[in-house]
């Protein structure tokens, strides 16, 4: 009897549910996961909360793999005519998405004064990668910068002040030399510093060029400056860490295993994303610090991470619903929650004024380092035909770091290749 009743209710629920769904606007939403932690759970929670507050809209979050997997899925879907309504993709994919005519400007939906205030609330450093040609194409969501993590224990052992990270390039070399240890046979057992160089070395490299006050590209994304002296100097500094000073492992350092190297005390300092903060906090068995990257001519780091985009081939009704969802999920409370759960930088200043974030930062000051660095941050390297131009730069950097080319030769070759690729976009 009880069972029959339950079955009946379930069937009724399904029936009504299906009926309601037809009256609802459904928005599909692709998202990638690029850092550790229960990201999927947080996103599903957000979607459920949003649906509760907005009964007319149904959000269907779809986990789509890495950033690369997600753009492959989103663009393939776009080409077959059925793209997601909205998706989180790399901020640097903006030009690619525009060139494919896959997305619409966010400005199309900004109508009220409240909308305008919302769009103006994001950190300008994050908006640099979200605007081009006078239009806004993306909304910052999971964004990061590069920071320096250091092992306080090893600093103490080396006779350094454990609470004072290196502030300049020269200081970083000096510290790293003191932190590099050799055994009796002359084999290095612990390196001073590691800047990962596999996969996407251009991103970490942009930290170096920014600090050397050199730009890698123009705002229009159709010119690059790889062979300028300031850029070549930055390559040389990176190469010298291994080659001249011997304070960094030779060859290419794998991005994925760099945090592990740090946990194993094989390196005393590492450069990596703030998105790893929660990971390091959980896994480092020693006292560690987080600092802004050291400066040379100035401080600096590129931003990184993903933006929300709205796809062109969905209905106006769906686009409006997606806009509402994006506005909702980037509100101060939610931005703060997202930052705490993942380690990403909350994308707007007022998120740091929320009680929950204030409390978190008070208990864990490293959480504020990336935010403080934002004032020195620049737009992540991004051009038309982005992946190809980036590959030219990556190949050049890896050639210099593995010693097959000099810094100058590697950058000249990369420049020539990039100029060839960018010719159609002038």
């Amino acid at each position, binding site marked *: 009897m009880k069972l029959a009743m339950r079955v009946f209710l379930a069937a009724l629920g399904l029936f009504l549910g299906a009926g309601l769904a037809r009256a609802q606007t459904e928005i599909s939403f692709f998202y990638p996961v690029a850092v550790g932690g229960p990201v999927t759970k947080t996103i599903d929670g957000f979607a459920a909360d949003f649906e509760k507050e907005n009964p007319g809209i149904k959000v269907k979050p779809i986990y789509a793999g890495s950033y*690369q997997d997600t753009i*492959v899925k989103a*663009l393939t879907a776009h080409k077959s005519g059925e793209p997601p309504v909205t998706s989180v993709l790399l901020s640097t994919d903006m030009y*690619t998405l525009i*060139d*494919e*005519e896959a997305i619409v400007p966010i400005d199309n939906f900004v109508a009220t004064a409240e909308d305008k205030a919302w769009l103006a609330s994001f950190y300008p450093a994050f908006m640099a990668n979200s605007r081009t040609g006078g239009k806004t194409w993306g909304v910052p969501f999971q964004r990061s910068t590069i920071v320096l993590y250091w092992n306080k224990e090893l600093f103490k052992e080396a006779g350094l002040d454990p609470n004072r990270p290196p502030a300049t390039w020269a200081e970083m070399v000096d510290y790293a030399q003191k932190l590099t240890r050799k055994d009796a*046979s002359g*084999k*290095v*057992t612990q390196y001073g510093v590691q800047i990962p*160089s*596999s*996969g996407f070395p251009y991103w970490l490299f942009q930290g170096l060029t920014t600090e050397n006050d050199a730009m890698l590209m123009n705002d229009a994304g159709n010119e690059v400056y790889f062979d300028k002296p300031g850029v070549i100097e930055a390559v040389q500094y990176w190469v010298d860490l291994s080659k001249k000073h011997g304070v960094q*492992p*030779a*060859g*290419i*350092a*794998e991005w*994925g*295993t760099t945090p*592990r*190297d740090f946990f*194993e005390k*094989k390196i005393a300092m590492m450069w990596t994303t703030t998105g790893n903060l929660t990971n390091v906090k959980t896994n480092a068995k020693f006292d560690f610090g987080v600092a802004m990257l050291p400066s040379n001519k100035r401080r600096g780091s590129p931003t990184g991470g993903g933006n929300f985009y709205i796809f062109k081939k969905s209905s106006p009704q769906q686009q409006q619903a997606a806009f509402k969802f994006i506005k909702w999920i980037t509100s101060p409370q939610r931005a703060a929650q997202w930052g705490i759960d993942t380690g990403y930088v909350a994308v707007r200043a007022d998120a740091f004024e929320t009680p929950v974030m204030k409390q978190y930062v008070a208990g864990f000051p490293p959480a504020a380092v990336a935010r403080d660095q934002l004032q020195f941050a620049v737009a992540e390297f991004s051009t038309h*035909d982005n*992946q*190809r131009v980036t*590959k030219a730069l*990556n*190949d*050049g950097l*890896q*050639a210099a*770091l*593995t010693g*097959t080319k000099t810094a100058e030769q590697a950058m000249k070759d990369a420049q020539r290749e990039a100029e060839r690729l960018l010719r159609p976009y002038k």
Partner: protein
Amino acid sequence: MSAHHSRRFIANVHGWLLLLPAAVLLVLFTHYPVIATFLRSFFSTPKGARGSVFVGLDNYRQMIEDPIFWQALTNNAFFAVGTIPISIGLALLMAIWVNGRIAGKSWLRLAYFTPTVLPMIAVANIWLFFYTPQYGLFEQILSAFGVPSHNFLGSKDTVLACLIVVAIWKEAGFFMIFYLAALQQMSPNLAEAAAIEGASRWTFFRRVTLPLLMPTTLFVLVNAIINSFRLVDYVVVMTRGGPDNASSLLLYYIYEVGFKFWDSAYAAALTMVLLLLLALLAVGQFLFMDRKVHYR
């Protein structure tokens, strides 16, 4: 007369109907894509509003001037030469070893076959840590013998060899199964006869076992060659083609061009080269090797 004809006709229709499901699938998922790819390789990549136009051989001309294509091709050749003979040799050795009368041979067979069963992505992640400098498995072993530290995957000289080792490890157990099956089919009379004639074990192996295994060897060889061009999962996980394209294989490069650069036309042209290469190798094998293969 006419009754005979109509019976033949019905038999024909019957035959074709039986072939139809498989034929449809083959045409839809194999032959049509090949032809479409071939045609696409003569057109430009559509970009937004700019549609696709006929460009003739431009994509192929671009290929000839593309240094990364040549590097990927060369890498692939080294990769094939490095993996195929060793993995087949090893497979044969292992098969003979576990075909003998030894204690715990089921466990040994299972152990040899394990790499084949494990998912490639998981395996590649494990190997990534084997190769890690300073505290990876190999580093720990080598440093015990006083060998200086080496960044295996981070150096252009060693990265391809490292991938070859993973591929051999993965493939040998799979090929062993085929050899083992062939060895078990072999009549024990042959060994007895050879023993009576006083042939040494080596002579028996060289003159009897090996020739009888030739059909298996041909099959395994075809598979090994295809696999050396087809498997790139571990490149994605372990090196992403780096450093500086030193471990980029042809199929990985096609993936990059097609799904990272979104240049589908050029990717189509590259795919045609891969197809042509595999077709030539297959034809060559069946034509030339057939003479050396004795089917019973």
